[in-house]
């Protein structure tokens, strides 16, 4: 039997994700950026960007998809390095703890 690596990886990821949810670590991890990003002004920056987009598109005609399409890539890029590093660290710790599934 040949088990494709991709498949394996995908399964791996799925398993890990499942583990994250089960332990509640995912919620904890989610809490971190919420606080941190507001603190560092990431949300403020993104908001002003939103205003521009909305003024451009017109207040009445803005849809969720528009916003998502416009803002998400920008948001991803605006995340400060410190926040990114901290997040990654926590994930690695979690993975190390749950090495054996």
């Amino acid at each position: 039997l040949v088990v494709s690596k991709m498949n394996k990886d995908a399964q791996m990821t799925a398993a890990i994700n499942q583990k994250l949810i089960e332990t509640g670590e995912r919620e904890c991890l989610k809490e971190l950026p919420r606080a941190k990003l507001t603190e560092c002004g990431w949300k403020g920056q993104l908001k002003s960007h939103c205003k521009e987009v909305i003024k451009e598109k017109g207040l009445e005609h803005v849809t969720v998809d528009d916003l998502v399409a416009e803002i998400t890539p920008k948001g991803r890029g605006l995340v400060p390095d410190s926040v990114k590093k901290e997040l990654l660290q926590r994930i690695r710790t979690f993975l190390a703890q749950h090495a054996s599934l």
Partner: protein
Amino acid sequence: MKMEEMSLSGLDNSKLEAIAQEIYADLVEDSCLGFCFEVHRAVKCGYFFLDDTDPDSMKDFEIVDQPGLDIFGQVFNQWKSKECVCPNCSRSIAASRFAPHLEKCLGMGRNSSRIANRRIANSNNMNKSESDQEDNDDINDNDWSYGSEKKGLWYLPFQNPNSPRRSKSLKHKNGKWGWSNGNYNNSTGISYETLGPEELRSLLTTVRGDLSSYPSLPCLPTRSLRCPQHTDEQRRTVRIYFLGPSAVLPEVESSLDNDSFDMTDSQALISRLQWDGSSDLSPSDSGSSKTSENQGWGLGTNSSESRKTKKKKSHLSLVGTASSLGSNKKKKPKPPAPPTPSIYDDIN
């Protein structure tokens, strides 16, 4: 899928890192999506642009950062040194002291009335022996309790003819001791109520020189019909003055007899009266002594009606207690109780 193959430890670090990165990306995207939803909701509900203000009003509320001012630009001690002019006394008062000053100045507020009351009490204590008590009475309404206690129940303050209390009090006293002004009216045509204090003063001082200490007193004794401050000679003089030379004077013997022990009697009267003792005597005793004294004043000359009222009233009086002394003594020279009508008969 075997469990061993799923073990993470079998994966190399890059793989682990990749997984970590994936998880991180998921988290960031979640945050972004959440933000987008919030903005979209704000836009659709209309509160997205609420916190935007125009630059003009922004300038008004800019934070001030100068020395001596607070962040609103206000001076700290601005009102300390300012002075206000009091509308009542037209004095210039410091702003921080203005409110308490106004309270005292206008006489309103709790403290100012307390201070005023204390001052009145102090001035009352200081005025020990005044000649014109009635003035104080007008100022302070404590004449009945205070003044009477001071004078040992002998002093009846004579009030302003215009005060509503005056007639009431006199009538009250009249009822108790059979001393009615009405009698005076009938007999003499002079009413103390209608006479002003000035007229009375002149009247009484001319007739009775001993009244100088209480110039406007008509000498109405509070508890007894015999005032201890004046002798019978003086009484006779007044009697003649009021009633005319043809006035019927009481019988000399009885009046003399009365006089002999009346002075001592009055002393005992004072002591007894101040005790507020109960009347443990028969009304007839009080009646006899009373009528004799009334006689001394020449009031017995009046109509029978007044006589009857006097009799009734005398029964009620407290003098009954003190008059026990007199009655005991009087029994010797005079006939006992029943003679009450006989005395009147004599007068008639």
